[in-house]
């Protein structure tokens, strides 16, 4: 066992862990931050994505001992940090429960089972930090390490675009099913 000091969601936490303990194990089992998910424990699925100094990393492939002193952000840290920011800056008009990316995911229907979402949302947040108006191709690239089995990625991409539009004060782009359909055929179906 080693004593580790980790900075998670703004708090410094001291804990004992085996030298081979991954960040995923420590977050889930020692700190109770179960929003970080284990889909494979091998670096293949992206469900365990967290932010390390703002950059997405796979917690299942990261040794906890090696990230001491770095800024670790999990899904649980997003909304409280957003609320803090809102409270501090009087110009921020919206003081929502959710971080804008979380809110966009919820609104766009991007959360089906939700198992991939903490990783997805964190990858998307990191993307929007470096590019606040990403093209579709850029979004696809940035999320390509996060597997989703439910959505076909469409509503996830729409969520990222929605967050970007919201940030820029733009209108939301219409989705395929919002376009007007053809009139029902008059003479029935046969």
């Amino acid at each position: 066992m080693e004593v580790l000091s980790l900075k998670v969601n703004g708090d410094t936490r001291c804990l004992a862990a085996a030298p081979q303990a991954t960040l995923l194990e420590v977050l889930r089992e020692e700190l109770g931050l179960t929003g970080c998910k284990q889909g494979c424990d091998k670096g293949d699925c992206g469900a365990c994505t967290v932010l390390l100094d703002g950059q997405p990393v796979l917690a299942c492939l990261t040794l906890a001992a090696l990230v001491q002193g770095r800024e670790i952000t999990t899904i649980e840290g997003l909304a409280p940090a957003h609320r803090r920011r809102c409270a501090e800056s009087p110009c921020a008009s919206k003081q929502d429960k959710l971080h804008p990316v979380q809110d966009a995911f919820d609104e766009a229907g991007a959360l089906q089972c939700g198992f991939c979402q903490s990783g997805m949302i964190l990858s998307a947040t990191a993307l929007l930090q470096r590019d606040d108006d990403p093209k579709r191709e850029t979004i696809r690239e940035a999320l390509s390490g996060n597997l989703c089995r439910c959505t076909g990625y469409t509503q996830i991409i729409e969520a990222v675009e929605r967050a970007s539009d919201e940030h820029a004060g733009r209108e939301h782009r219409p989705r395929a099913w919002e376009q007007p359909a053809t009139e029902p055929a008059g003479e029935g179906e046969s």
Partner: protein
Amino acid sequence: MAARDQHGPQAPWRGEFRVLTKPQRKVDGAAKATGEALFTDDLALPGMLYARTLRSPHAHARIRSIDTQAARALDGVHGVITGADLPQSYGVIPWTQDETALATDRVRFVGDEVAAVAAVDERTAEAACALIEVDFEVLPARLTPEEALANPEPAIHHNERRPGNISKHVKLEFGDVDGAAAQAAQVVEGDFSFHGTTHAAIEPHCALARPDADGRLTLWSATQITHYLHRALALVLGLAPEKIRVIQPCLGGAFGGKSDPFSLEFCAAKLALITGRPVKLLWTREEVFYAHRGRHPMQMHYRTSSDGEGHLTGVDARLLIDGGAYSSFGLVTTYYSGQLLTGPYDFPSYRFDATRVFTNKPPCGPKRGHGSVQPRFAFEVQLDELAERLQLDPIELRRRNLLGENTTTVNGQRITSNGFARCLDEVERASGWRERRGRLPRGHGLGVAGSMYISGTNYPVYPNDMPQGGVQLKLDRSGLVTLFTGANDIGQGSSTVLAGIVAEELGVEPEAVRVVAADTDLCPVDLGAYSSRVTFMVGNAAIDGARKLRRQVLAALAQEWEVAEEEILLAGGRAGLFNGDRDLPMREAFVLAETRFETLGATGSYNTPTLGGDYRGGTIGASPAYSFTAHVVEVRVDCETGVIRCEKVWIAHDCGRALNPVLVAGQMEGSAYMGIAEALFEHHTINSRGLHAGPSLLDYPLATSVDTPELAALIVESIDPEGPYGAKEAGEGPLHPSLPALANAVHDALGLRLRELPFTPGRVLRALRSQAEAGS
């Protein structure tokens, strides 16, 4: 049919929807977005032990003996169980109960469960598993259906009624198929094959069992069939059902892969009972590939006949189905492989002859579009071939064969609403089909396909006359309405749909409805999330229950205000009159109702009407309503590398009525994504030694956001007469046309007919080579 099942498709308050049919956020959306939502593996209990499973290294072997002494002696080990501890066999279908939680005398595939250990942590449990000595007598393994049929002994399962490794055989014939072929102007005949795929939900299977202090047992599990699991646990553990509570926490995707009772649920429960401590058993990703229950590999021979104008006259199918080591839902799969093909086209004669065979591989089962995705691929490609022969536009050929609404299929299934013709119109328009198809440069093409799917099945897996769907509702002076239902929300959003229905009926805001789901102690029975049944059946049950409460609230208000009930409108969290007079917060209306009628509660039920053909198996595939889908797929094929790039899929789906269009679109897109990925990438392969070719999410290639095409969901509504407000399913139907539409697009692009899935670059290059040779 009971009157309680019929509510009519109209909106409750003078025909206008206020909550439904509009995008609504999910009831659990915020919890999922913040990481607050708890999945089974997120739960931890004081004193909890961790379990691991020991699996067979052999594809087929007899167990001579098992020595667990060294494992038991390991420090930190609290319990070791083998097949002798859980000898009772089970299976989701009562007639084919051929599984045990742990092998009793025989293992049937590499990965079959042999023993389980509970210890202080996973590493100790794993180490203990390695200390268990199993003496195996290796038996010959049959890895293909042909091999299994040719070598009946040693049988994979001993079954006097069905010897020769046959799991199920169904042959049904309607009309004169051979006569139709003999007289047909056109006969298209050919072989097709589907390779086998798995669900690969991102959440691995997990179960947590707790022996409660009062002598009962609680099991939390990542299951989509809480009720069937409850029954299976009672059977296998030998406990009365009232001593067992099953809870499904948040579920991380299922797609049919969590609709059997699994070994880990029984093992966690048994180990908890033995040790007296909570036990968690989480399968690794590798183990999930062994649990499988994925889409069956099928070899399919189809012969489709038509007259000179392209009207279908007969369809003749022969299917060889590779079932893997156990029955699972295989009896139903075998029926579905034929029964679900008889729409959206009309043909007067049909025969299918389907045989499911046991092999020494991970068991196959139901995967999104159960049993019917593979036949649909073959048939829709043949329709394209037929159109080509007749020089007809493939959409036109399909239009000439429309089944239509309010009719009966050749195999006796009742069809009510049917929006398929409009689905074809939609994909034709949106894809620019008329201007583009057949006119794109070589390598670039468009293809079309259609399909039909069930909205729930008439056939509960164990025969009974009790309701198939149920809810219980309570409301009180707090203003909150609570809906209890056994229905499993597996990410598809069923709890959100049900909350929307209750909000619409009772006029409260959706946030004032809480859904308590999939807890066998608290919720009335529902059969579970399978066969696309939940919106249709539980939606109807929710309307049934909510209307009973609504009557009480209206009666109380009418008395208070001295008006007729018809003048009252409950909407947006307020009670008032349609003419604008009166305005009361709903909470106060509920106070009036609670005062007059005392404690308020209601139940709601749904049962299917009597349906199905009058022959053995005629009820399998019978559904109270069918959904319809058409796809157009656009591809670009690189002739140098053989790589098919699917660029876009237009998905038009008749879901009856879109109660929440965001959820419906999400189901349509997710379905099409999965279908395209199965056609291009996914391959659940077992090699010639019985080993899984790559049980990881890297080796089993899932489509990433970069590989997935643009998906355009085009919602078509046909307002079903019996669905809740006219709704039908959206979660499985829209997968079917993806595969054949893609194959047909490749034909448009290059003139190649691909009949063998998946369409790997190697296969494309081989086909191109044969094409060049034939041309030269």
